[in-house]
C-alpha cells in the first residue's frame, strides 16, 4: 500500500505532498525533511530503495526534483518505481515543459 507521495526539491522544499494515511501536520514537515535527507545522501550508483523506519522509500530523481513514494512491504518496489516514471510522463504530456 502506498503510504505517501512526495515531490520535494533539492533544497528540501515540498512541491507536492499527498498522504494516504493520517499524519499530524507538524509531523509531516519532520517526515519530509528526514526523507529528503536520506535521499540526498545517496550517490548515483546506489539503489533507489531505502529502508526507513517500518516502511520502504522508493525515490527517483528528475533534475532538481525528487519524487519519493513511501510503501509498505506488500508492494512491489520495482512496480512503484515504474509508476513514478509513468506519473512523471503523464505530467509531462499534460502540462508540457515539466
Amino acid at each position: 500500500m502506498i503510504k505517501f507521495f512526495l515531490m520535494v526539491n533539492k533544497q528540501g522544499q515540498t512541491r507536492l505532498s499527498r498522504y494516504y494515511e493520517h499524519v499530524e501536520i507538524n509531523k509531516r514537515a519532520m517526515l519530509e525533511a528526514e526523507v529528503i535527507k536520506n535521499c540526498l545522501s545517496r550517490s548515483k550508483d546506489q539503489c533507489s530503495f531505502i529502508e526507513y523506519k517500518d516502511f520502504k522509500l522508493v525515490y527517483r530523481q528528475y533534475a532538481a526534483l525528487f519524487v519519493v513514494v513511501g510503501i509498505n512491504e506488500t508492494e512491489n518496489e520495482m512496480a512503484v518505481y515504474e509508476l513514478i516514471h509513468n506519473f512523471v510522463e503523464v505530467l509531462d504530456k499534460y502540462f508540457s515543459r515539466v
Partner: protein
Amino acid sequence: MPAPIRLRELIRTIRTARTQAEEREMIQKECAAIRSSFREEDNTYRCRNVAKLLYMHMLGYPAHFGQLECLKLIASQKFTDKRIGYLGAMLLLDERQDVHLLMTNCIKNDLNHSTQYVQGLALCTLGCMGSSEMCRDLAGEVEKLLKTSNSYLRKKAALCAVHVIRKVPELMEMFLPATKNLLNEKNHGVLHTSVVLLTEMCERSPDMLAHFRKVRQLSSSQLVPQLVRILKNLIMSGYSPEHDVSGISDPFLQVRILRLLRILGRNDDDSSEAMNDILAQVATNTETSKNVGNAILYETVLTIMDIKSESGLRVLAINILGRFLLNNDKNIRYVALTSLLKTVQTDHNAVQRHRSTIVDCLKDLDVSIKRRAMELSFALVNGNNVRGMMKELLYFLDSCEPEFKADCASGIFLAAEKYAPSKRWHIDTIMRVLTTAGSYVRDDAVPNLIQLITNSVEMHAYTVQRLYKAILGDYSQQPLVQVASWCIGEYGDLLVSGQCEEEEPIQVTEDEVLDILESVLISNMSASVTRGYALTAIMKLSTRFTCTVNRIKKVVSIYGSSIDVELQQRAVEYNALFKKYDHMRPALLERMPVMEKITTNGPTEIVQTNGETEPAVLETKPPPSGLQPASQANDLLDLLGGSDITPVIPTAPTSKPASAGGELLDLLGDLNLTGSPVSAPAPQIAQPPFLLDGLSSQPLFNDIAAGIPSITAYNKNGLKIDFTFERSNTNPSVTVITIQASNSTELDMTDFVFQAAVPKTFQLQLLSPSSSVIPAFNSGTITQVIKVLNPQKQQLRMRIKLTYNHKGSAMQDLAEVNNFPPQSWQ
C-alpha cells in the same frame, strides 16, 4: 475589496520568499485575507480562496478554518466549485472532524447526479475519507454504480468499494454478486480496479478466498482461469498504444494479476496447478532489457515461490533471481537479494549455487545491498563452505560500517559455533573477531567464549599466548580485554613457562604479565567490569606465579580503598584471603574445571548475571571450599566393590573463583574444611568468574508434600539418620531427600560427613549440610539435602558412608539403605 489573487499568483509569490520567515509572513497575510473573505460570504471567489488554502495546507500551515467552506462549495451547483470542494474535503476533512457527517447528504445526491463527472467526484471523495457511518449509509449506492455499464464510473466505484470494505468489513458480502461480471470488461481501468477489489476481498476474508477458489459448474466463470486468460491476452497481444509502457502492455495490470494469483494459489493445489503454465510463459517471454520487464519478472518469482508450484518452475524462478544478481542495476540486485533471503529456507541447495555472487555483493558500495548480502551469507553457511565463507565475512567485518558490526559479529559467532571444523580454527576466528570488532561484540558473548576456551583443554597454552599478544598493544576493546584477563588469570603459568606446541612460544616473565594486568586496571578506558576481571586475574596468579606474590599482595591492598565499590569489595576479600585464610588460597584459586556445555542456540542463551542460569535438571550449588582429599574417593570405591554401583567421585576441587563473599567465610567458620562431595555426573553450569554471591541459587521446586512416608535409613551407636522425601512437580524423575541426623548419646559428634552412592542408572547430588556437629541428647540435627535423578524409574537403592568424631575417636561406618518407599521413586 479587491479580488483575491489567483492561486498561481500566490504560488509565484511564495516562491520568491528567500527565508522561512518571509514565507511565513506572506502566508499569514494571505490567510488573513482569505478569512475575511470567508466572513463576507463571497460566493464568486470562494473556490479560489479555498484552492489557495489547500496549497498552504500542503506546505504545512494550519487550514482548519476552511472546512466549512469546503462543505459550502460541495453544495453549490457549479462544477468548478464542487471540484475544489471535494478536493478540500479529501485533504482537510477526515473522521476526526465532526463536520464530515454533514457531507453525507451531499454525496448521496451527487452519487445520483446526471453528470458522470460529478458522480465520479463523489465516489472519489467517499473512497478517500469516508468514515464507517458514511460508508454504511452509502454502500448501497456504490454497489449500484458498480453494476452500471459506464466504465468510467465502474472503475471508480470499484475503488470506493475497496475503501468501504476496509472500513466496514461486514459489508463485503454485499459486493459479491457485483463482482461476477467485473472481469468481463475490456476496459483496462475497470479490470485493474476490479482486480484490486478482488485482492482486497481475498486478503480480508478466508471465506471469500475459498469462494473464489472453488470449482463451479461453468468453468468460464471461475476466477483463476479468467485471470489466466486476461494475462495471456496481455502478453500475447501486439502493440497497443494506450497501454504500452516501454514495450510491454500494461505492466501495472500484469503485476496486479500476478499478485492476485499468488493469493489464490497459496496453499491450494488446484489453483496452483491451473497457473503453472501461464507463470512459466510470463517468466520466459518477458523482455528483461528494461526495468519494466524486470518488475514483472520479480512479481512472477514471488508468486512462484509462494504457491505450490512444481519443482521445475521453482528452479526457473531461482535462476531468474540468479540472473538478476549479475545485472548491473542496483535496484534489481537489491530486489534479488531480498527474494533469495525469503527462499533460502525452502530451496537451500538452489540458492547455494549462487553463493559466490552473493559473497561478491558484500563488497558493494550500497548499504542496503550490503545488509541483504550479509544476512543471506549467514543463511548460506554450512559445514562444507564454512572456512571460505568465514574468510569473506571476516574481511567484511573489517571494512563494514559500524551499524553492521554488531550483527555481523554475532552472526559469525553463531556460525562458528555450529560449523567449526576444528577447535583451533574456532578460537582463531573468535580472536580475529575480538581484535577487529571488539567493541561491538555483544556482552553475552564473553561468557560463551570463556566457556569455549575452558573446554578446549589442549589449546589453553596457545590461546593464552595469543590473547596476551593481542592485548599487549592495545587494551581498549573491552570484551577482548575481559576474555584475555580471564585467560591470563587461569593459565598464567602456561604463559610464563613458555610451552606452546602450536606456535612459537614467547618469553614472558611474571612481571611483564602483571604489568599488563595492572595497566588494564589503571587505564581510563577500562570499564568497571573489565577492572573486576583484571583484579580477579591478578589474584589467581598469586597461586600460579612463584616470585611475584608480594607484588600481587601490594596491588590488591591498594585497591582495598578504591572508589569503585565492586573493586573495593573484591580487593578487601582478597586481602582477607592473604591474611587470615592463606592456607586456603591455593584451593580456592585452583583451575576451573571443564564446563559442561549447555545447549545454547546462540550467544543470547547464556544469562550471565549472578549465577542464575538456565534450569538444568539438577542445579548445582558449588560446594564451599571444595577440598576433598582424593583418598576419600578411593575409600568409597574400595568399599563399594559392587560393580553396579558407581561411587560418588568428587570432581577436581572446584575452585570458587575467588569470589569469597561473606557467605563463604561463614561456612568456612562452621565447616572446618570438610565439605560434602560433589556429585560427579551432575553437569556443572557455566560460572562467569565475576559473579559474587549468587552462587547459592537454590532451585525453587514447587514441591508437593506428596505424603511420602519417611524412613529411618540408619540407626546405630546413637546416630540416627532419617530420610524424608519430596517429589518435584516440575520434573517427575527427581526425588528430593532431606536427611536428618540426630545424636542420642551424651557427647556431641563432630566433623560429621555424610556420603552416598547410588547405582549407575541414577544421578545423585548432595548439597551442603547445615553443619558438621550433631549436638548430644537429640538437642539438634544436621540436615542435608540429596537430589536423586531417576530417569528410568528404577527402584532406589543407596549406600551411605558416615564419618565423624565421637568421644575423641574417629568413627566410620557403611550402610545400605533399601527400604525406600515406592512412592519415592515410581
